[in-house]
């Protein structure tokens, strides 16, 4: 039982990181129907920005988090402007291939400049451990979960209480109608990328602190898994992404805790194929019907 709860704690902290990345996927997919493959790499860049700031500027956790978020938001907007905007009217496959291209570009440009070697974060948070019976919860896990919750609440606030949030929701329902109502669609899409990327950047810093090691290819697997989380929860749905992220995180830790950690990734991908076959709209997604 203790081991079960311990795995649960570990799973939730990993899952909240996945959830933060999955939110960006789900928002971008909701608004322009694009699987933004580069999202996982924005998260990687976020981790590197955090690393640079904490190591070379000797700043603490919160400044690093905020600067990484701002940098990633800017990066997300640039990617959208340069790579995706010219393709707004081309086929879905073309945009998807571009997204893969951007993803590889970010990975290898980073590798070119910072080298392929793994770097470790300086110690930012105390690794004080709280014991609840036999369950160990460390300070970092608490920080991760709390930061994730605060950011998600902030996102809910932006989406439901502000004008731009309303615009985002409207554009994701019907782009043309929104445009006719005088909503600046391009600006809204750009803003969506900014918010999604900022969340990914935050996740990058959190992961850097949690696992204490970063490298230019660290974004590939978490990116894919976060996408699976978004699909699991129902792509386009914000609460779905949060639930999906947490479930994938918990599942992954359980597979490595009780089974063979080598099969961790395979189980997640098998889950994806199962969801896509059984319920492609995900847990909270809406069924869409195809019109002929």
């Amino acid at each position, binding site marked *: 039982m203790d081991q079960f709860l311990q795995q649960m704690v570990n799973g939730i902290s990993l899952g909240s990181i996945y959830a933060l990345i999955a939110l960006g996927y789900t928002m971008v997919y909701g608004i322009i129907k694009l*699987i933004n493959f580069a999202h996982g790499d924005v998260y990687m860049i976020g981790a590197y920005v955090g690393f640079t700031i904490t190591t070379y500027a000797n700043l603490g956790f919160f400044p690093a988090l905020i600067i990484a978020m701002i940098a990633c938001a800017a990066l997300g907007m640039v990617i959208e402007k340069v790579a995706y905007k010219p393709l707004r009217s*081309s086929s879905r*496959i073309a945009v998807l291939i571009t997204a*893969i291209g951007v993803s590889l570009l970010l990975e290898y440009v980073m590798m070119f400049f910072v080298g392929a070697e793994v770097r470790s974060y300086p110690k930012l948070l105390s690794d004080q451990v709280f014991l609840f019976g036999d369950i160990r919860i460390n300070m970092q896990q608490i920080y991760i979960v709390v930061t994730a919750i605060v950011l998600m609440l902030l996102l809910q606030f932006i989406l439901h209480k502000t004008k731009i949030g309303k615009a985002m929701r409207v554009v994701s329902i019907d782009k043309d109608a929104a445009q006719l109502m005088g909503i600046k669609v391009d600006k809204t899409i750009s803003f969506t990328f900014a918010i999604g990327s900022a969340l990914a950047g935050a996740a990058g810093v959190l992961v850097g602190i949690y696992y204490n090691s970063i490298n230019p290819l660290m974004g590939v697997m978490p990116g894919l898994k976060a996408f*699976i989380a978004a699909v699991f929860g129902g792509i386009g749905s914000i609460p779905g992404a949060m639930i999906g992220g947490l479930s994938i995180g918990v599942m992954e830790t359980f597979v490595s805790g009780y089974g063979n950690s080598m099969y961790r990734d*395979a189980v997640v991908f098998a889950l*994806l*194929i199962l969801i896509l*076959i059984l319920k492609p709209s995900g847990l909270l997604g809406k069924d869409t019907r195809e019109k002929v």
Partner: protein
Amino acid sequence: MKALTKKNLYILGAILLTFVIVQLLIEIGIINQFYEVTLATICINIILAVSLNLITGFTGQFSLGHAGFMSIGAYVCALTTMHLNSTVGFLLGILAGGTLAALVGILIGIPTLRLKGDYLAIATLGMAEIIRVIFLNMEITNGAAGLQGIPRYTSWVWLCFFTVAAILLINNFIKSSHGRACISIREDEIAAESMGINTTKYKVMAFAIGAFFAGVAGALYASYFYFLKPDIFSFLKSIDILVIVVLGGMGSLTGSVIAAVVLAVLTTFLQSFTEVRMILYAALLVVIMVFRPKGIMGTKEWYDLLKFNRKEEKIWKRRSR
């Protein structure tokens, strides 16, 4: 349709000529060991690209799991030749590898090909990852350390034979009524379905044929490079193949061949700069999609560019007016 048309004779002549010239160059020693690797890469990549083109370019089903099928062929052939160390074993291995890859393709294709566009892409990607993880954990494949000392049977003769066979068979498939059905699925799936085409059947068929040749390419790869490990067949390998197809033009076999040659030569020159090569690949993908989404050839083949066809086209156009 006569088999011995002028065009087919030209093709036969060109193939024989290429074969003889390269064979001569190898024997004289102008193509040394170093360039032979490039040659093998070109041939293997052509088979991979042509088979992926059938799935992605002609049938319009975006697959990111081609490396998975390739790895099945590679491992099956490697294990077969290691137990049956002869040319018969090698050919048996290729056949078994291709067939097993095709079977897995059918098995995975039937449920996943109901998905569309990006969902299919992710599902196939997931499939390739699952295959890789399975190979990573199997005893017989020696896990992450990989297989070593695979006997080498792949030579220029076999490479040439299988490359030509793959191109011709896939070309003939596309020209057949089955192939036309596949193209109609790419153009408009709903319209194709309403014309009475069993879209699932043809999608799975294209998937299986594509997987078969990917398996054959993998088998040739295993038997040429002595050494296999699951990491070779990662997501990046699938992307490598995709870059060839996209650059050459989705829906053009000629384009795939040209792009495979160009990129293999490029890779040879950039061998010691892996990062630069990947940056170039990635930038190429983005630039092609933004500025010339149809790639080098679009959906045209080499004979579409020749004169006698143009004349026919004009006549046909006039008639249809």
